[in-house]
């Protein structure tokens, strides 16, 4: 008995010490540890005292046991319960803290939480955890309502997504959808998430994730793509332009070099010398015209045009142009007509005469260049608030699809055109740039094979 009681004593005491040691630094209130320790120790000591033949103790042994054994069991229960409560409180605190951090992060990122409801077969955007700048049209997207909630361009993507969820495909979700806003309009939302198996009572596969507004990113992306396409197109146009230009520069230079070499021949007659010098001079003028074009278009591109305004009699300017180009048109076998439709004598503008002249001149040159037969009409008309200068021809015309592109810098509709017709192809771009610098608008109407009409609309109020 003595041995049994001694071992019991040691073990009870040991259990008490172990408890104290293990939980001293933990979240158990100190009084629970102390009570448990005391009770366990007391049970231990009561065992020891039982086998000591101690008269005084005998009288107390049973009452003490009666009192302390139930108390001991109760203290074990209380200890465990308190421990459980503390554990749960800590877990709840941890969950709350994590939840708060997650919410703050989601607010900062402007995200929302979504989940696939496998029972109802629908994507649910959690209203309580939706921190997007705008609410979507609906917080639920399913096969019945997706046409109302999404833009038509996202229908394929959402159908693929539905199929993926229905097939319980565990591929990560990464889909961009154009979703309708509640306040109207659309915004791009990026759905990111994953599918995994979970142990839940009613279903075993769950797909969930976050979504974020990527409209800004998408618009930047579109801009970048557009710029890239534009840059590639410009690159091609510039190459074509350089190809054309090299021809335009090379031809007069060849003329200058060739005739200069011939002029070195001392046997040439005076008449021939004069003829060749005239040809060299013409080549120089052609060359300078090409250089002028390039300088002009560069100035227009940079926005470095100096406009000198003064009152210009447009009727006189048109008549002067008509006289200047009448002979050239006639040489080409074309009929050159002047049409002044307005009866008003006062057809004046407050504008830059040289730039206006240059703009119209370019259009007339183009009209004559691209018209094999028929006529070219230079006209002037006046509406209530503006003067309209137009040039009509019965030339080759421009295809409808190319109409918008004809004013692009360095734009050549066809490289071979220029070889057939000559010129750097900057004429229309320069005219448009100059007219816009003068506050006017350029309009072009054309039908392939039938002719073209280019008109400049210049506001009288804005100019005068």
């Amino acid at each position, binding site marked *: *008995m003595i041995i*049994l*009681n001694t*071992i*019991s*004593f*040691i*073990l*009870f005491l*040991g*259990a*008490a010490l*172990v*408890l104290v040691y*293990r*939980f001293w630094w*933990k*979240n158990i209130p100190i009084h629970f540890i102390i009570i448990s320790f005391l009770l*366990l120790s007391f*049970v*231990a000591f009561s*065992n020891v005292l039982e086998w000591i033949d101690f008269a005084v103790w005998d009288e107390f042994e*049973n*009452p003490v*046991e*009666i009192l302390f*054994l*139930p108390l*001991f*069991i*109760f203290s*074990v*229960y209380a200890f*465990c*319960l308190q*421990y*459980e409560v*503390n*554990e749960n409180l*800590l*877990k709840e605190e*941890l969950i709350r803290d994590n939840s708060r951090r997650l919410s703050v992060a989601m607010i900062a990122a402007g995200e929302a939480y979504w989940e696939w409801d496998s029972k109802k077969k629908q994507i649910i955007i959690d209203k309580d955890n939706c921190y997007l700048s705008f609410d979507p049209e609906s917080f639920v997207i399913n096969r019945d309502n997706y046409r109302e909630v999404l833009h038509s361009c996202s229908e394929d993507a959402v159908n693929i997504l539905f199929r993926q969820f229905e097939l319980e495909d565990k591929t990560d979700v990464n889909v961009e959808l154009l979703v309708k806003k509640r306040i109207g309009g659309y915004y791009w939302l990026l759905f990111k998430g994953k599918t995994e198996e979970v142990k839940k009572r009613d279903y075993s596969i769950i797909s969930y994730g976050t979504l974020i507004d990527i409209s800004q990113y998408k618009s930047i992306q579109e801009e970048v793509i557009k710029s890239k396409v534009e840059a590639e197109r410009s690159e091609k146009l510039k190459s074509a332009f350089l190809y054309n230009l090299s021809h335009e520069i090379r031809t007069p230079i060849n003329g200058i070099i060739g005739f200069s070499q011939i002029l070195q021949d001392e046997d040439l007659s005076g008449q021939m010398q004069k003829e060749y010098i005239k040809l060299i001079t013409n080549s120089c003028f052609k060359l300078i015209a090409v250089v002028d074009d390039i300088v002009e278009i560069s100035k227009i591109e940079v926005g470095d045009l100096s406009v000198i305004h003064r009152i210009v009699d447009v009727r006189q300017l048109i008549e002067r142009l008509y006289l200047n180009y009448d002979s050239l048109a006639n040489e080409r076998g074309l009929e050159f007509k002047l049409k002044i439709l307005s009866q008003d004598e006062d057809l004046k503008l407050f504008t830059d005469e040289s730039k206006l002249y240059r703009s119209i001149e370019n259009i007339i040159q183009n009209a004559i260049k691209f018209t094999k037969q028929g006529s070219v009409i230079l006209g002037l008309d006046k509406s209530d608030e503006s003067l309209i200068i137009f040039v009509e021809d019965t030339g080759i015309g421009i295809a409808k699809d190319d109409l918008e592109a004809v004013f692009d810098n360095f734009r050549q509709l066809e490289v071979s055109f220029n070889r057939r017709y000559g010129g750097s192809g900057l004429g229309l771009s320069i005219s448009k740039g100059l007219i816009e610098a003068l506050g006017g608008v350029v309009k072009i109407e054309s039908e392939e094979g039938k002719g073209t009409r280019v008109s400049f609309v210049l506001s009288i109020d804005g100019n005068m």
Partner: protein
Amino acid sequence: MVEPGEIVCLLANVILFLFFIRLYKEGKCQQMPKIWIWGLVMITGSNIFTVAEGFVLVAVFNMLEHLFLLCASLFFFVGAFHMKTSGIVK
């Protein structure tokens, strides 16, 4: 001769033990090591033998009383090691 105090002690022991088992089954103190329940069973058993000793004075009852108590102490000692300490740092 059985003492009334011993019977009261036994009854209190059994009632608390049953109450404790019920709570454990309800999952209200899941962190407690299962072996402690056996420790409590042993303490109750020890008490039963204490009472039985009062009715019939048999040496084996006294022996069993102490043996059960020894088992109880052993179970409590082992359980103290197996009790889950919280993984959460306060």
